[in-house]
């Protein structure tokens, strides 16, 4: 694993969302088809196999969100759930 994505899942009002299902939806190489649950503070981190651009998606039963991240990058990705 050569890179790491750190992030937080938020609802539309900006509150952290625990237990959102976070997964790599797209990337420069095949990625494992598992999903991580965001922690009690809505936070998560995922290792990725190589540098490049990834789409990280988060799904909860009341909404979904996604964003594109470049690895290596830095900072914390914010995924805001919407309908």
């Amino acid at each position, binding site marked *: 694993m050569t890179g790491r994505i750190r992030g937080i899942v938020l609802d539309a009002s900006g509150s952290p969302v625990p237990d959102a299902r976070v997964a790599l939806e797209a990337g420069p190489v*095949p990625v494992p*088809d598992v999903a991580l649950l965001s922690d009690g503070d809505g936070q998560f981190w995922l290792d990725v196999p190589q540098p490049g651009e990834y789409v990280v998606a988060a799904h909860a039963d009341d909404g979904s969100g996604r964003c594109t991240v470049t690895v290596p990058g830095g900072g914390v990705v914010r995924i805001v759930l919407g309908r």
Partner: protein
Amino acid sequence: MSHDTTNPHEPVAPEPEPTDEVGTEELTEDPQTGDNAQKQSVEGLDLEPVAAAMAEALSAEETAPDTSGLRPIGEATYGPPDPSTESVQGPDNRVQITGTSSYPWRVHCSLLITANDGSRWIGTGWFNGPKSVITAGHCVFIHAPGTQRHGWVRSVEVMPGRNGASLPYGKVVVPRAQLRSVHGWTSSPNHEYDYGAMLLSEPKGNETGWLGFANWSDATLNGKTLNLSGYPGDKPSGTQWYHWSGVASLSARKVYYTLDTAGGQSGSGVYVIENGGRYAVAIHAYGGSSSNSGTRINKPVFDNLKLWKG
């Protein structure tokens, strides 16, 4: 100067060629439908009846205008997507399974995985015997070197035939000591060896039934319809979704296909319906650019699945 204490005369041999792992002898281990008669007959079919009905409905639909040359509206705002890997290939044709307490749907298990650092993950597994559930290697052993997450996961909650909040066969917590994988996966994150198992202390599979599994040649596999059912994270929590496709390509250790999948479906059985029985031929593990892929059940994988079946 080397201080290697290995006997310099210890015999070694080249690793077998990957093609040798399929072998020339086709091997099958039969499925079992479980305790009662709640099962769907697939005599004469190569895909599940729910798909056959959908395919018929689709073919009867009025044809929509060809919009394949148009760009997605999102690109007007966000520009074209650069990443080349997506797990849902083209239109999303996955079908939700709600009758999960009947065979074959009840052999598929929703997994809640607790990693060594306490992080929680979702995946999918499938019964291949009374007390054994097969999954991807990365559902039981996570590669995150230098972190507390790295290594065997702490435990896996196995929920056969889950349908949202409903657990028709309850749940079984499998501790770390009852997890299995292979050296090819635990020593490095090599996609070709990405498979593992959870050994249950109770024979829950006698109630649910299980999928058969098979080591078949390229000639036998090419042209078959592949089926997959699992628990994707992009659908309502804990719901089971089914899809089918043809074989896109084969290697000695991998099967590639255009089955639609999403994070959470790692570990699903990729199966073929043959003479009314369901036989897994791969273990789903990765989303790819033009196809998704799973670990092929070649001869060594077949032997390990049989070993874990007990």
